[in-house]
């Protein structure tokens, strides 16, 4: 299998088949918290994609160029968290400067990208899956971000229409959202096993 095919397969795999939100249940907090409106969900997805791509690249570099050479694997978590927090701060400043309405509407969820498990999870998966190629690391990180964007946008699209649905009183609001999330996950389980 040549490099390009394996990269493409890895990308499709992380977006559709091993989507971190649907199969690993990571990043559920913004997935349910910011998926009320499609435009906000898309913005959140882009912010997460940016952060996870940057964090994936940087952590892979730090891991392979510094930590493994100095036998400091034990500090992996701390280093990763520093990188992620720094990247989120950058995104926050950028959004505040250029997209103030988006910044306002994200509220607390923007700094909370720091604790978004998709990001730390992806950085750790890169290590766990033994990715030893920087291009592949970047492609996979970006794919996980795009997968998250896709998941949160599908969810937001459904929820925008769900507002008009006549759900039973006991299920209105959060319960019907959680049921929707479950069914959505179930649907995406149909892809499982196609690649990897």
């Amino acid at each position, binding site marked *: 299998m040549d490099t390009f095919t394996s990269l493409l397969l890895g990308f499709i795999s992380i977006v559709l088949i091993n989507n971190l939100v649907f199969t690993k249940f990571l990043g559920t907090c913004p997935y349910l918290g910011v998926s009320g409106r499609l435009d906000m969900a898309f913005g959140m997805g882009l912010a997460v994609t940016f952060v996870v791509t940057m964090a994936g690249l940087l952590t892979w570099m730090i891991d392979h160029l510094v930590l493994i050479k100095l036998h*400091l694997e034990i*500090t992996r978590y701390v*280093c990763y968290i*520093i*990188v992620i927090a*720094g990247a989120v701060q950058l995104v926050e*400043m950028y959004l*505040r*400067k250029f997209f103030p309405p988006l910044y306002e509407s994200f509220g607390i969820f923007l700094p909370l990208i720091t604790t978004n498990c998709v990001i730390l999870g992806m950085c750790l998966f890169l290590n766990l899956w033994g990715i030893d190629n920087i291009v592949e690391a970047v492609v996979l990180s970006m794919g996980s971000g795009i997968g998250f964007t896709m998941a949160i946008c599908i969810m937001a699209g459904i929820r925008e229409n769900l507002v008009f649905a006549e759900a039973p009183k006991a299920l209105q609001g959060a319960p019907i959202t959680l049921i929707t999330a479950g069914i959505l996950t179930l649907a995406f389980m149909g892809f499982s096993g196609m690649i990897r």
Partner: protein
Amino acid sequence: MEIILLSNLFVESLPAGITLFVLGLGFAIILLIASQKLRVEVDPKIEQVHQALPKIDCGACGFAGCSSYAKAVVAEPKLLGKCAPGGTACAAKIAEILNLQFAGSGLPLRPIVHCRAHTADRTYIGRYTGIESCTSATAIPGVMMCKFGCLGFGDCVDACKFDALHIINGLATVDYEKCTGCTACSKACPRNLIKMVPLAGGNVIVVACSSQETGKDTRAMCRVGCIACKLCTKQSDVFSMNGNVAVVDYNKYSPGEAFEAAYNKCPTGVIVYRGKNAPADRVPAEKAAAG
């Protein structure tokens, strides 16, 4: 031996420390540059208003914290005066910053517990051994004979961020030296015993009971309850009846007025003073026996 081990530990952990330090420093520098390049001009008034606020983030104004209230009040001057802990002084300061006229009632609101029964004054019919919380205890009938009184499990104490509330002998007691008037306790009380009252002149007079039972029933279950005898309403028109309990109308209330007559006439001693240096509650037994 120990010293050698410690120094070994230090030497071995040095690379980790240096790596993390360099990493942190690198990000600090990047963020510093970014914060300079991406600086956003905020209205300096917002920062000034934030400085004038007490900055305790109590949430009494209905906003997430002092900074979001500052932002809201600059945008919407109508919201002036929502800061309970800051009170009038704070509102006046904000009005000055925003170039507004502030005319509001000058008195800070403070929580008053409308119950004065300690454990010894009450009647219990069973022993409650469930979750130690007023919210769950009040859901069970018959934990305490009185359906209206303070349960003393301290939901309000948990709600208080300022260590200003304590359960003393089974009764929630406010420490007015520490209280900021943030209203958290009045929201926490499942029996709505804690009401916010303008604390005029340091001490206010309070009918410290909420029982809507008839006088006979109240007396049967509590030594210090309001028995709806209406004696106080005859002494001063500040007092009025709300069902079977006397209440003080704080709109008519002025601190200079003498309430000694009503205070002394009350057969169960339920009329008490509350405030920073309130006199001790009257001992009820003397009159209760006579009446």
